[in-house]
């Protein structure tokens, strides 16, 4: 059983497959022609709210609507 098979360069650098796949998808989307590009970028937008917790109580949540890179 080859458990020491040659790993891909991105895994050797500490990146997971899902990160690699998302980076590839973003690069492809950035190379689209105009109407398709704005559709694709708006399709992949995410909105989320984060609240940090201290002493068992949530603080005020912050709303983030990042472009889906990280």
């Amino acid at each position, binding site marked *: 059983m080859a458990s020491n098979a040659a790993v891909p*360069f*991105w895994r*050797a*650098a*500490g*990146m997971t497959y899902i990160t*690699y*796949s*998302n*980076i*590839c*998808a973003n*690069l*492809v*989307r*950035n*190379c*689209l*022609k*105009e109407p*398709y590009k704005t559709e*694709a970028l708006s*399709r992949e937008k995410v909105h989320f709210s984060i609240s940090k917790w201290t002493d068992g109580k949530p603080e005020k949540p912050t709303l983030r609507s990042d472009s889906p890179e990280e």
Partner: protein
Amino acid sequence: MLGRASMLLPCRSILPARARPFSTDLPAAPSADATFTEAWTKVIPNMDPPKTPLSFMQPRPPTPSSIPSKLTVNFVLPYASELATKEVDMVIVPATTGQMGVLPGHVATIAELKPGVLSVHEGSEMTKYFVSSGFVFIHANSFADIIAVEAVPLDRLDVNLVQKGLAEFTSKLSSATTDLEKAEAQIGIDVHSALNSALTG
């Protein structure tokens, strides 16, 4: 040392005879439980028994004994289903091990895809898509499931943006310091050069 190695070998060759079958070779699970339906109709004869999720799903067709004439392809993206059980003659997928042609009767395979061109051949027409990455699962019954994160027809790609991206990432690779930056720059170069060869080739 060699004597011990040759004694170990005969033990391993007995094991494959008991290998477990693939899921496509097993008979499909029955979609309705007979005892439940009988018990239901005894107690509530006027209402139909509730449907279980299994009855909504179509079981995968079993592996036919002779090679079918067409390959059935399901090509899906996270936001849309490009091809759903489409019967085609051949697909060429950009696997990490090279361009792989899949014909009906292909051996069951799981392949990881690299950024490249996927072409679907049906009769005399051929449709090409640029796939960013994903997987292809080829089953023994000539069904192929292609899953990709992003797949675009080639005419939606802008050549200038591709070449600009390629130049940008080539310069990033030379100025990268950490392993992670180098890996990202290398990914950029791979993707953009695949895009470039797809558009020019």
